[in-house]
């Protein structure tokens, strides 16, 4: 499983492209593995506002459904229409073409973000 060094992660298994005020969000390879075959994504509309840790959508596999959590307070700038049409993309390329939303941060709340190494450590703890 890969966790690219240039990304930031949350304990809800989302990734952020960077820690500045505009960033894209997706789900980590670990989340993808846990879900299995992804069949459906429900994503918000451009312009919607969410608080950090609020659910901004859901991701469904055949057997489970999980909420997607907003990593920071922010407004939706763009939504990846392509993955809504073809959710398999998220599975094949979670950090690239499988991005979900682009966000403009509305607060300076980067405190809870993990770098790739800390996230991997967190996963080891969780699994144990």
């Amino acid at each position, binding site marked *: 499983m890969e966790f690219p060094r240039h990304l930031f992660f949350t304990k809800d298994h989302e990734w952020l492209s960077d820690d500045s005020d505009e960033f894209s969000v997706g789900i980590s390879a670990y989340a993808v593995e846990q879900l299995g075959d992804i*069949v459906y994504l429900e994503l918000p509309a451009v312009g919607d506002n969410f608080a950090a840790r609020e659910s901004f959508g859901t991701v469904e*596999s*055949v*057997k489970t459904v999980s909420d997607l959590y907003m990593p920071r307070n922010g407004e939706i700038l763009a939504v990846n229409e392509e993955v809504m049409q073809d959710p398999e993309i998220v599975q094949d390329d979670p950090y690239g073409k499988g991005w979900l939303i682009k966000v403009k941060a509305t607060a300076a709340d980067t405190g809870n973000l993990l770098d790739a190494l800390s996230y991997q450590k967190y996963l080891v703890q969780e699994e144990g």
Partner: protein
Amino acid sequence: MPHHHDFSSRHIGVGAAEIKKMLTALHYASLDELSRAALPAALLGTPLAETAPLSEAQLHEALRTIADRNVCAKTYIGLGYNPVVTPAVITRNVLEDPRWYTAYTPYQAELSQGRLEALLIFQQLVMDLTALEIANASLLDESSAAAEAMNMAFTHHRQRRRKFFADSQLFPQTLAVLQTRAAPRGIELIIGEHTQVSLDATFCGGILQYPCADGTIPNLSNFNKALHAVEALAITSADLFALTLLPPPAACGTDIAIGSTQRFGLPLFFGGPHAAYLATRKTLLRSVPGRLIGVTKDKRGGPALRMALQTREQHIRREKATSNICTAQVLPAVVAALYAVYQGAARLRTEATRINELTLLLRRALLELARGQKLGPLTISNASCFDTLTIAMPDASRQAVLQRAQQQRINLRTDVEHKIGITLNALTTVADVQELVALFAPQSELNWQDLQQQAARESAAQQWRAQDFMTHAVFNNYQTETEFVRFVNRLVSKDISLVQSMIPLGSCTMKLNSAAELQPVSWPQFSALHPYAPAQQTQGYRQLIAELQQMLAEISGLPAVSLQPNAGSQGELAGLLAIRNYHAAQGQGQREVCLIPASAHGTNPASAAMAGLRTVAVACDRDGSIDAADLRAKTEQYHDQLAALMITYPSTHGVFDDNIVAVCDIVHTHGGQVYLDGANMNALVGLARPGDFGADVLHLNLHKTFCIPHGGGGPGVGPVAAAEHLAAYLPGDPLATGDKASHALASAPHGSAGIFMISWAYLQLMGSAGLRRATQIAILNANYLALRLTPHYDILFRGRNGLVAHECIVDCRPFKTIGLDVSDIARRLMDYGFHSPTMSWPVAQTLMIEPTESESLAEIERFCAAMIAIRGEINAIAAGELPRDDNPLVHAPHTLADCMVDSWTRPYSKQVAFYPLTYLRTHKFWPAVNKVDHAYGDRNFHGGLDQQEVAP
């Protein structure tokens, strides 16, 4: 006295010698000793009041006497229940065929292709007639379907629009159920006239009956336009049979159509079981309640069917599910679908036209007599009609008509003051119309021939639907009995049911459904009665119901029993609503927290949500019992808000929790009620009574413990039993008048009364001693099975003395490390001729096995042999003898198509693939498709017949 006619020895699968052998293996001297070791001593209390078993002959005599107290009358009551002829070929080859009625819900798609195909035909039938894009494969009845549609509208508007409009000409039972279901969800039900309502943006939706209860064919488009103007969802409760003539709801703007399919070949059954349908637009796909059948492909790329988009449902989404429905109405839906196949569009249209002509004839005759002053003042309230007339007349003449009707055993609709309703049906003839007219004017002369011609012309001149329906080949190719029987047989041969092998599904209790118990279901004096027939005609049913209530009260230790709920899920809702309403009546309306263990069945949290309760999870400890410390903490935290604890006993982990009495006490101390999910009553009947150990409410599944067959996914019956203080809040007659809320949850006062005699018969045939023995054997079989599998698999949970209850959970999580999923084992079992045990519930990657008391030792050994052989295959993979991606498990099930390949290149032999054990040479089931691709089907949902299957 030894009985040569002892039914219990036929019902129970093991004899004295086998029992002795199993007890010895388990190191117990007797069944009683085993029971004492397995169950906490505090539970082993009052035995059942003693009743002697009946023989099969005695049973039929007793039921005959009861049936004779029912009267088959001519029925024109309507209200969504209309007599129809069930073709004998369907009675014999579907309704009364154990290959159809003993199958389970088609979760294991590869061995369920036959009934999945029948259900896909059902969906296509509904899609065609409503002209909507998707249809589900059945809801429990019309009224609950209306409630489901109301919930869809409510959630569609994210619960922000609180008002829902219901037309006053909805069937009264539907209005009653909407009332019960709206309040707890915080929906304000506005009842009024659809032509006069003023809607605004606080309405989430509205519903209209089509045709209306009084018979009017309403202007559906106008009503739907008014709803759409405020962006509310337009819901139509449509008579599916009438839609063979009427313009389809979708063409009038309807977003969601619901209704009953009883007129497609099912007897009235004194109210049920019948399948309801729900159809809607593609845009609402994700909020559809209940099961959806979808097309996908199998591993070889061929077409295959499966239950689709299950993430909507309670077993995955729990309190956020679109509905709490689980068991649906598969067998009635299969009958409706096959009835449509047998009739075809032309016959259905002709029949509907005939009924409409007769209705117009009746109308002309009555109006002509009224004009000629041959009878007192009379008006017909509905200006338009399909099959129903509502006749208004002065009370004195109304009374005279009703009196004559009663004398001649003709049932009319009488629940509306100053009016009489008449709905004609498939049995009605011109002579019947003349007989009806004579009720109004006993001595009348009419030129019937002229009237008939006028009626036919009038019917032909109406604006009937222009849209075709049922154009697929399947609705055209099987209309001779020879072809039809072969088609039905082709379908059912693809499925595994109890006629092939044990179906060891934990929590589902797939026990014997004996022919003697089932036969009386088809007796006309049980099957032909209307649910709202006058009480004096249904004395037999009333006796049967009272006796069944009494027996279930005795078994549960709870005195008040309602038989109305149409499945376990509805029993849960009934019980939770009773608790909620009871608290409210005590001035404790703030009690809205429902504690539910993490291991609970999905219907539990989903029902709590429907009852307007807030779910709070309670942890389970390592044995699978409730974590007492967490329960204490949660009950203290929610001391003032606690409504109930919902708990299953024995637990969903298949163990008798030692603490159950203390658990109940803790809940009571904090002012909560104990709701017991009785799905596992097969481990308790005759040994312990929930009412005695602390339960306040309990639902039973007659389709598990009490022998109603599972029907391939329904019908079920989910009675709710309650303590005295809750009795007033149980579901009552939806048409009851007076100021008391009826709390009705179903269309019919007694739900699926037409199958109650099955459970009544079981209880009578077994007698109290037989029932107790059946429970003891269910526990014995499960423990013996656990013992046999222990050297090969880990049994995940055990209770007192290392014993399980009536089921056991086999842990398959360790096989993950060699790339195996529990579903690989489930599919491999098909190659061995078995339906998998319950998969990944209540714990992911496990199998829960419940043998029931009905299985023989030989069958249990055969199943264990299969499980052990599979373990050998798993070991070979672990040892590297078989590749992880090319072995008999990942390729399972193996089909004839696999066998037919020219060169066999697998690293295991054909013998291993197809005949891994010797019994298979004489006893082989061939799955119809290879491994089904679930993801493909969910990504590309298609829930109807293939276009290529359209008739040329």
